[in-house]
């Protein structure tokens, strides 16, 4: 029996959505965000992680006018409205790219790899895209 099964009918699982890919070059960033916004309605414990090139999804000042693709970066701001508050960005990935929390479009929790290890190991479901 799993821990949550003791809680009766209202199962709450810890869902983590992991983003490792840059935006626009592929659609994974956008389609993962679409899942997270739906997931927010399910009363589960949702967290979203950005590591490696995934941190680039949150870079400020994206302007897609000249590539003709939809700029979806403002949609990350909606995460707060949907009560998705656990947003983790790996410190090492940010630093490797010369970025800091001030460069990001939303407030996030910047965590070192050692801490992210612990957070990742506390999940019940991990969805990558």
């Amino acid at each position, binding site marked *: 029996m*799993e821990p949550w099964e003791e809680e009766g009918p209202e199962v709450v*699982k810890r*869902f983590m959505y992991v983003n490792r890919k840059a935006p626009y070059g592929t659609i994974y960033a956008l*389609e993962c965000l679409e899942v997270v916004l*739906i997931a927010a309605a*399910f009363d589960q414990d949702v967290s979203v992680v950005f590591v490696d090139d995934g941190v680039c999804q949150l870079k400020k000042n994206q302007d897609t006018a000249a590539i003709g693709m939809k700029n979806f970066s403002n949609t990350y701001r909606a995460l707060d409205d949907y009560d998705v508050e656990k947003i983790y960005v790996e410190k090492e990935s940010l630093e490797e790219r010369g970025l800091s929390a001030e460069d990001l479009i939303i407030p996030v929790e910047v965590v070192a790899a050692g801490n992210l290890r612990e957070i990742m190991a506390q999940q019940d479901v991990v*969805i990558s895209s």
Partner: protein
Amino acid sequence: MKIGILVNEGPFTHQASDSAYRFAEAAIVRGHEVSRVFFYNDGVFNANKLSEPQTDDRNLVQLWSELGKANGIDLVVCIAAALRRGIKEEVLKDGFRISGLGQLVEAGIENDRLVVFGD
């Protein structure tokens, strides 16, 4: 054990759908229940009934359809991903159904494990 599967790529271009299929088959042989396979991103192409591989090649659209019917697996194609990629009822292989992303989250909630196959 109840297992859910997420497939993020179409047949042929990436091995993801092949791996997911072999995994699902093996899980059933081991006595587990594969309750749902959710097809997202390019994974929606796994439901395209017009797919016609060479005769000496595997036909994943057919294989998924048969595996689903024989074992009561709910094969769900994401409607948002499918619409933009042109996978609609008129080309949908029997055994698959089109539904919302909520079905993926549900698969995460209701199964003991969710295994993701992608690029």
